[in-house]
């Protein structure tokens, strides 16, 4: 049984993958105090290390960015990691998987669900990013233009790590794409160079953002929104809160 509140993130660097990995590292840093998050960065994002991390931590959630095709997901230096009908695909049983990797939704994603993965998020066709504008190639995470598609796509993780269900995370993902499109059409980015290109790329990436499997799974304990009130009650009532909770706990004996 995979462990709740535990995630393995596969974050290769080469071949433009750092453009996404650096965004995911930023997101992960916001949740390190709530979840056990294992990052496999750069040269560590290789098959043996990934398998070892999955066996050691048994995570409920696995994220990977990498170059892909319909039946294959590759990691650092385009090293094949997971293919349709492979034993690696079987290792994903019981887990929620997000592969930010072109075309994998066509076969690999369906195969993962067939092999028991709880939920799969992926990309049905080519996933685009912008790496430069006006004759300049930008560094990863250096500006909004290069992060915009990942800011939308990785809303899946922001939602799941906050305790949303897989279905809610998918809805949040699609809404985030709309929000990013609005940023470049009517928002602060509207008059910036390459804004129109960003809109097109976001529109493409939104249209291929799919989810298969369960829409009711959770990977993290929800952030308690009523905590301050509960804490206040606990401080005032002391032991009384325990009495109230105990009285609402169903007891056996009826069956």
């Amino acid at each position: 049984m995979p462990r709740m509140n535990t995630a393995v993130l596969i974050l290769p660097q080469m071949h433009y993958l750092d453009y996404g990995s650096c965004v995911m590292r930023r997101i992960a840093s916001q949740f390190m105090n709530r979840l056990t998050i294992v990052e496999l960065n750069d040269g560590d994002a290789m098959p043996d290390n990934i398998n070892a991390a999955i066996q050691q931590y048994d995570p409920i959630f696995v994220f990977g960015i990498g170059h892909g095709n319909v039946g294959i997901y590759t990691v650092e230096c385009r090293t094949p990691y997971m293919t349709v009908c492979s034993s690696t695909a079987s290792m994903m049983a019981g887990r929620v998987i997000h592969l930010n990797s072109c075309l994998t939704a066509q076969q690999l994603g369906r195969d993962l669900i067939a092999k028991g993965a709880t939920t799969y998020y992926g990309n049905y066709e080519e996933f685009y990013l912008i790496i430069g504008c006006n004759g300049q190639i930008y560094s990863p995470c250096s500006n909004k233009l290069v992060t915009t598609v990942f800011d939308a796509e990785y809303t899946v993780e922001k939602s799941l790590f906050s305790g949303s269900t897989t279905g809610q995370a998918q809805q949040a993902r699609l809404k985030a794409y709309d929000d990013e499109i609005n940023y470049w059409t009517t928002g602060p980015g509207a008059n910036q160079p390459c804004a129109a290109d960003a809109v097109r790329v976001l529109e493409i990436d939104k249209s291929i953002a799919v989810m298969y499997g369960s829409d009711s799974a959770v990977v993290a304990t929800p952030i308690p929104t009523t905590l301050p009130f509960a804490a206040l009650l606990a401080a005032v009532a002391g032991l009384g809160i325990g009495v109230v909770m105990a009285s609402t706990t169903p007891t056996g004996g009826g069956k």
Partner: protein
Amino acid sequence: MRLRQLLSHSTALFAVLSNTGTGVTERVYTPQQILEEIEKGTPIGKQWIKAEENIIMRFLTSR
């Protein structure tokens, strides 16, 4: 037509996260190359045309 105009004036550089096999060069596209994909009617070109249709629909429904 609108997409052609946009791409012919664009200075963006695009990359994709696809892997067509070992030893394949980086999948990076200039706007001119995207235009060529559109002219040839490749899957890449069709993606861009579909996106443009979606953008037009988005614009019309927001009015």
